[in-house]
């Protein structure tokens, strides 16, 4: 029995288009979802039209490449359709949407936000690399998607959109290359052990550059992730550190070179907190751990080069975060306002008069860490976390109503 790839490929795309048609008949509380699904339909249809025109005279290499591209497109787009569908689920805290959308409009105007949830224990975004330009798709883990205190992690994801909108990759890439090459030259003996055929003269040749391209990719990725962590601290203040620790401490064992190590990320968050005058949780860094790397020797060496390279630009990233957020009018954490909201929470009423979403979430975290909170209300004690979440969400609603009344 044999098979031909093209009919299978066409059938797969037609099946995806049928699914898209079904989704288009669904109700979406976030209108951006409907527009996004339409874009996906157009992308799939364009590919189907191209492939349907193939015949026996079409070059087999073209058919092969088209089938590959079609498959890749399905891998790319199907998760996004699922993401849109899950955005309708009532497990999500819809109270977040309008305030986060306003934040996104401030920072990345013309980008469309979709908040949803994921069946992966990891908040994430689908940034510009996907085929939906100008979309910010933020997903929280399904088990945390109603947790107001996890919301600051969206700050990291908004950071990816800012990174793209501000073309920071383009701005930082030359600096990363230069820092990496400096690092290599500074560790030349170690480098030659791994790559004995490379000389000082040929280090920057295209051929030799392939020896350090993996380190460049890792460093560039780490720099973007560091920026996004710093950005999360800038726009969500201390609550970012709490949410980050809540979700990820002590960190998983496997080292992914595309990200800074667990401890390095925690150290960077501490540095960012100090820069913006925030209170640090006690022994923050020591609650994160790195385990012995399972990378092979050469990869381990390249990873260490990437780590040093990424560290070398962190100060510039902090500066960039501050400038972008300040220029966009994003207020830093206001300790007085946070205290006022905490005082309201103690009385079991929503806070009012907040000027920034971050202050509400920070108040939520302060209340969360207050052992005396509601100690006079024994009937609440057992469901303290749920009540706190409700009161934070209610405060977010009040914040939104006040913003609308102010004409924002």
């Amino acid at each position, binding site marked *: 029995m044999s098979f031909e790839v093209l009919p299978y490929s066409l059938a797969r795309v037609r099946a995806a288009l049928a699914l898209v048609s079904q989704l288009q008949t669904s109700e979406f509380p976030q209108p951006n979802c409907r527009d996004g699904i339409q874009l996906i339909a157009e992308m799939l249809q364009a590919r189907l039209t191209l492939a349907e025109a193939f015949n026996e005279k079409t070059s087999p290499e073209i058919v092969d490449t088209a089938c590959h591209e079609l498959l890749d497109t399905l891998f790319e787009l199907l998760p996004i359709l699922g993401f849109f569908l899950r955005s309708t689920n009532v497990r999500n805290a819809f109270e977040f949407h309008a305030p986060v959308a306003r934040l996104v409009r401030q920072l990345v105007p013309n980008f469309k936000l979709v908040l949803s949830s994921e069946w992966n224990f*990891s908040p994430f975004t689908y940034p510009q690399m996907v085929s939906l330009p100008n979309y910010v798709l933020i997903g929280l883990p399904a088990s945390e998607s109603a947790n107001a205190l996890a919301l600051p992690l969206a700050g990291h994801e908004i950071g990816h959109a800012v990174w793209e909108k501000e073309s920071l990759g383009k701005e930082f890439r030359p600096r990363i290359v230069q820092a990496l090459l400096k690092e290599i030259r500074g560790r030349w003996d170690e480098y030659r052990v791994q790559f004995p055929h490379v000389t000082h003269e040929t280090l920057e040749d295209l051929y030799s550059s392939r020896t350090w391209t993996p380190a460049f990719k890792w460093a560039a990725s780490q720099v973007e992730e560091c920026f996004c962590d710093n950005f999360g601290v800038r726009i969500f203040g201390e609550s970012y550190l709490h949410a980050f620790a809540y979700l990820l401490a002590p960190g998983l064992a496997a080292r992914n070179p595309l990200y800074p190590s667990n401890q390095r990320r925690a150290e960077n968050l501490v540095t960012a907190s100090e820069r913006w005058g925030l209170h640090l949780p006690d022994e923050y860094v020591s609650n994160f751990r790195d385990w012995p790397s399972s990378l092979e020797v050469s990869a381990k060496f390249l990873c260490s080069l990437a780590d040093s390279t990424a560290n070398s630009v962190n100060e510039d990233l902090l500066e960039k975060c501050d400038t972008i957020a300040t220029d966009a009018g994003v207020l830093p954490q206001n300790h007085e306002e946070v205290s006022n909201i905490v005082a309201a929470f103690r009385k079991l009423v929503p806070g009012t008069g907040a000027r920034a979403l971050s202050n509400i979430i920070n108040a939520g975290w302060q209340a969360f860490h207050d052992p005396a909170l509601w100690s006079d209300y024994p009937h609440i004690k057992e469901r303290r976390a749920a009540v706190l979440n409700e009161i934070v969400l209610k405060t977010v609603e009040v914040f939104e109503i006040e913003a609308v009344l102010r004409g924002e």
Partner: protein
Amino acid sequence: MEKSRREKGDLMPAVRPLNPNFAFLALKAAVELDNIMRGKPSGHAAVAELANSLRETTSEIGGSSLTSLADPLSADLLNRALEQSSSSPLGINTVESLVRRANDVASSLQEATPGSGMEKLQTLLNFCLALSQVASSYQQEERERMRPQHPQRH
């Protein structure tokens, strides 16, 4: 209102390994070249757009060393596509030679007609296919970075 092509992600200002739809643009250009070779009526839009992307990229690469590059990955992508589509080693070792070669390809794409000669058209077609394949693999790597399959993705 009709969305612009850029809004739909159809336009590529420059060859970027991670640019969405780039692999599809290169594939469409290959199909147009195939049509030209077979004497089939065909548009030239994708070929022209790809040529513009290449020009844009080489103007961004600009300098003569990797330290002057805006994006070493773009250089790597172009180099790999050129190597993959060539039957013999090209020996492109410097950024200058890569820029020169990519500009030659961009010019050839802009001038591609039935009169360009089958061999030249086939070379261009092979390049477009290689570019599509390499861009796809880059895109896949990036997808794996940005999506949460990896447990440490945050």
